C-alpha cells in the first residue's frame, strides 16, 4: 500500500512544478509601467503607447477588448482593479461606467481647452478623438445592381440590398448604439418613426456583427454589399486595398467621441494620469496622421489630416447628445432587441 503513495508522490512532481510555474508568474508590474485596457484595436493603440514610452519613459502594458467586454471586465474587477486606465472606446461606454462608480475623476491640463462635448463636467472621462459613422459599400456590388453609393438613409431600403447589409449588434457594440441614436436624431427623436425605419431595414440586414468593425471585411470581400461603420474602420478597409467606397446620408449621421478614463483604486494613479495628460494633448493626437489612424482629433489645436478632411468635406455630421444617449441607452437597446433584432 505505501507503494501507491510513493507512486503518487513521484507523479506529484510535475503537479507541483506546474503550480509553481503558475504562481511564479506573478503580475509583472515594474515601477515605471502603467496598465491599461485598450478599446482601440491593437495596431492603433500600440504605436501610440510606443510613442508615449519614447516621450516619457513610461511603459504601457495593455490588452485590447471591445467596448462591452472591457466595461464588463472593469466593473467585475471593481474591488480588485487590474489596470489603471481605460483607453479609447465610444463615450457611451464611459457614460455607462460612471453609474457603476468605476472611474476616478481627473482633469488633465488640456481639460479647459476641450469643447464641452469632449469632456465630462467632473472629469470622469475626457475625449481623445472623434469618430463619425459612414456608409461603406462594395463597388462591384453597386455596379452589379446599378446602384449609386447610398446617399440617404432611405437608399438602404432598396430591395437590391436584400440580405446584403452588415452592421453591428447593439448588444455588444458601441458602433451600433451610436448608429441607433443617429437614426433617432434623423427622425427628430420620434421613436415610432425611427423604429419603423429600422424594422423596414431589417430584411436587408444579412448579419448584425458582434463588433463595430466586424462587417468591414465581408463588405470589402463582397460577401455583403454595404454597411454602416465608424470612419476609422471604413478608411482602414479602403487602405488595405479592398474595393469599397464611402458615403454619407444627406439627412446627416452621428459621431461619437472616443474617451479615456482613470480607474478608481488604480495601483499606479500617477502614471495613469500622465498617460491621460499625454493622450488628451496634441502630443498624441498629432500622431494620428503619421500612423494613418483616421480619427478626428479632439484637441482644437490639432488639424484634421488633409485626406481625412477631404472625405469629411460636405458631410452632414452631428454629435450624439451623450446626456440623452446615457439616459435612454438601456431602454432603446432593449427595444431594438425586441422589435428589430427579434421581431415577434
Amino acid at each position: 500500500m505505501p507503494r501507491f503513495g510513493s507512486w503518487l508522490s513521484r507523479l506529484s512532481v510535475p503537479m507541483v512544478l506546474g503550480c509553481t510555474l503558475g504562481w511564479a508568474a506573478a503580475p509583472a508590474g515594474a515601477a515605471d509601467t502603467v496598465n491599461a485596457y485598450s478599446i482601440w484595436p491593437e495596431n492603433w493603440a500600440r504605436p501610440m503607447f510606443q510613442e508615449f514610452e519614447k516621450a516619457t519613459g513610461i511603459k504601457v502594458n495593455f490588452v485590447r477588448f471591445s467596448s462591452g467586454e472591457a466595461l464588463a471586465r472593469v466593473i467585475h474587477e471593481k474591488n480588485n482593479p487590474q489596470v489603471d486606465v481605460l483607453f479609447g472606446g465610444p463615450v457611451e461606454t464611459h457614460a455607462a461606467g460612471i453609474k457603476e462608480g468605476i472611474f476616478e475623476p481627473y482633469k488633465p491640463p488640456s481639460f479647459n481647452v476641450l469643447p464641452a462635448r469632449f469632456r465630462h463636467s467632473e472629469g470622469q472621462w475626457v475625449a481623445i478623438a472623434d469618430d463619425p459613422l459612414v456608409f461603406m459599400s462594395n463597388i462591384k456590388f453597386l455596379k452589379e445592381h446599378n446602384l449609386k453609393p447610398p446617399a440617404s438613409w432611405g437608399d438602404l431600403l432598396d430591395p437590391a440590398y436584400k440580405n446584403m447589409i452588415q452592421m453591428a449588434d447593439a448588444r455588444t457594440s458601441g458602433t451600433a448604439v451610436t448608429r441607433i441614436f443617429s437614426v433617432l436624431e434623423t427622425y427628430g427623436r420620434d421613436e415610432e418613426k425611427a423604429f419603423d425605419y429600422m424594422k423596414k431595414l431589417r430584411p436587408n440586414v444579412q448579419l448584425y456583427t458582434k463588433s463595430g468593425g466586424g462587417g468591414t471585411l465581408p463588405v470589402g470581400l463582397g460577401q455583403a454589399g454595404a454597411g454602416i461603420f465608424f470612419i476609422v474602420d471604413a478608411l482602414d478597409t479602403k487602405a488595405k486595398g479592398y474595393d469599397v467606397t464611402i458615403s454619407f446620408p444627406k439627412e446627416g449621421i452621428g459621431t461619437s467621441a472616443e474617451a479615456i478614463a482613470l480607474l478608481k483604486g488604480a495601483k499606479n494613479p500617477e502614471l495613469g494620469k500622465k498617460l491621460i495628460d499625454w493622450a488628451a494633448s496634441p502630443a498624441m493626437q498629432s500622431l494620428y496622421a503619421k500612423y494613418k489612424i483616421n480619427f478626428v482629433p479632439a484637441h482644437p489645436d490639432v488639424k484634421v489630416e488633409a485626406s481625412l478632411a477631404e472625405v469629411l468635406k460636405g458631410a452632414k455630421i452631428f454629435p450624439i447628445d451623450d446626456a440623452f444617449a446615457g439616459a435612454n441607452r438601456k431602454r432603446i437597446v432593449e427595444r431594438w432587441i425586441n422589435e428589430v433584432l427579434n421581431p415577434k
Partner: protein
Amino acid sequence: MTSIAAARIDGWRRTFRDPALFTTVIVLWALLALFILFPLAKLLARTFLDGGQVTLANLAAILRDVNHRQAFWNSLLLAALVGLCGTWLGFVYAFAAVRANLSRAWITVLDAASLLPLISPPFTTAIAMIYSFGPRGLITYHLLGIKGFTVYGLHSTLFSETLTYFPIAYLTLKPILAGIDPNVEDMAFSLGSSRWRVFRTVTLPLTVPGLANAFLLLFAASLADFATPLILAGNSFPVLPTQAYLQITGLFDLKGGAVLSFVLLVPALVVYLLQRYWVSRKHYVTITGKVGAQTTIKSLAPWARAPLLGACLLLAGVILYFYVLLFYASAVVALGANHAWTWRHYQVIFTEGLKAIRDTLVIAGAGMPLGGLYGILLGYLVARKIFPGRQAMEIVSMINYALPGTIVGIAYLIAFNDPPIVLTGTALIIVACYVFRYSPTGIRATVALLQQIDPSIEEASQGLGAGSGTTFRRITLPLILPAFFAGLGVVFIRSMTAISATIFLVSINWTLITVRILENMTELSLGPAAAFSVLVVVIVFAVIVAISGLLRRFRTPGAVDMTSILGG
C-alpha cells in the same frame, strides 16, 4: 443485514483501510470543491438570490421570453445533430482506420486530416467557411456560380461544428474498435455469420459504450460552443451560449447570462445520466488475458474498402481545403484584395504577439501534466474502486465540461476575484479552468478503457499478494497509459485552442493566442489572425508528435494499442 447495507459498510471500511486511496479521494474532492463546486455555487447564488432572498423571478423572466425559449430549442437541436453526425463520422473514420486493413500511409493521411480541426482554434473552420460559402464565396460564387447563398444559419453551424468535433468521436472510438479482439469476430465468422451480421451483432454492440461516450462528448462540446455560432449562426438561429455571452459582455447582465446558461445545464445533465444508465448495463470485456492465436481482421468485404476509403478521403479533403485557405490567408497581404506573398503577418505575431505566444505555451505546458494525471486518477477511482460518493465524484467532475464555457469563465471570475481566494490576473486561474474543464476526455478514456479490461487481471495481481498501489502501478497503469496521454493531449490542445471560458480569464498579465485571434478577426487583421492559427496548429502538432513518440517508447506488451490516438 441486507446486502446493500453490508456493501455500504464494506465500502467505507475498505476506503479507510487503504490510506493511499483515502488520501487520493480526499485530495480530489478538495480540488473538485474548490474549482468546480465553489464557482458554481457563487454563480447559482447570483442566479437565485436577490438581496438574500431565494427567488425564481430571474428564471421565470427568461423562460417567458419567446426568443430565449427558441434559443433553448435551437441549442438542443444543434447539439443533438452535431452529436449524431459527429459520432457517425467518427465511427466511419475509426472503422476505416482500424478495421479495414488499410496501409499505414492511408491511416496517416486520415489521422493527419482528423487532427487538424482538433488542434486549431474552433472558429478557424467557421472563418474559412464564411470565405468559401458566402454570397461571393470561393466555392458558392466563384466555383459554382451560385448567387445570394446564405452562409449564416443552422446548416453552416452544424457543418462547421461537426467538422470541428468529429475527431473527438474518432479518438474515442478508435481505441475501442482497435481493442476488439479479432478472434471474437472470427468465432462468429466460423459459426457461419455474414460480415454484416458480425458487424451488427458483435462489432457494433462492443462499441456501444464508446458510441455513447462520443455522442455525449460531442453533445456537450456543441452545447458549450459559443464561438462557432457567434460567427456562423447569424441572427436567425440564436443559441443559448452565444445569447448568454452577448448578454454578459454586451448588456453587462451577468444575472441574465447566468440564468440562460443554467437552463442549458439541465439537458446536459439529463443526457449524461441517460447514457450512463444505458452504458452501465452492458459488458464489454474482450481483453481477457488469455491471448488467442494471431489472426487477421476480416470485418470488411474487399469491395467495400474502396468506397469507405473514398468517403473518408473526401472528408479529409474538405478539412485540408479549409486549412490550405487559412494558410493562404496568413501568407498574402490581404485576402481578397492583395494576393502578393508576404511574411509580414508572421513578423507581426512574433514581435507584437510574442507575449501571447509565450503566455499560452506556459499555461498549456503547466496544464498538460496536471490534466493527464487528474484524468487517469479520477477515471481509475470511478471505474475500479468502491468508495462512498463515487458516482457523485464522477458527476461533479463532468460539470465544468457540460457547462457552457462562458459561464465557467464568469463563475471563475466571480468566485476568484474577491477574498478568500483571489486568483484574478494569475496564470493559475486559467490553468485550473483548462484542467477541470477538459480532463473529462481523459477520465472517460480511462473509464472506457477499463471497462474493456477484465478486472480478473487486477484480481490476479492482488491475489498474488500485491497491494492496491502496486497493482495500480504495475498492472492497471500500463494498461491505461494510453488514456493518460490522450487526456494530457486533449488538455494541451484545448489550452492552445479553447476560448469560450478563458476569454473572461485572460488578464493584463496573462493573455492567450485564441483571444488574440478573435480580436484580430474583429480588428480586420485577418493576416495575423490566420498566422496565429497556423502557428497554433504547428505547435500543437509538434507536441503531439513528441508525446506520441514517448508513448511508443513506454508501451508495454499487452497494452491496448492506442499509440496512434494522437495521430503520430
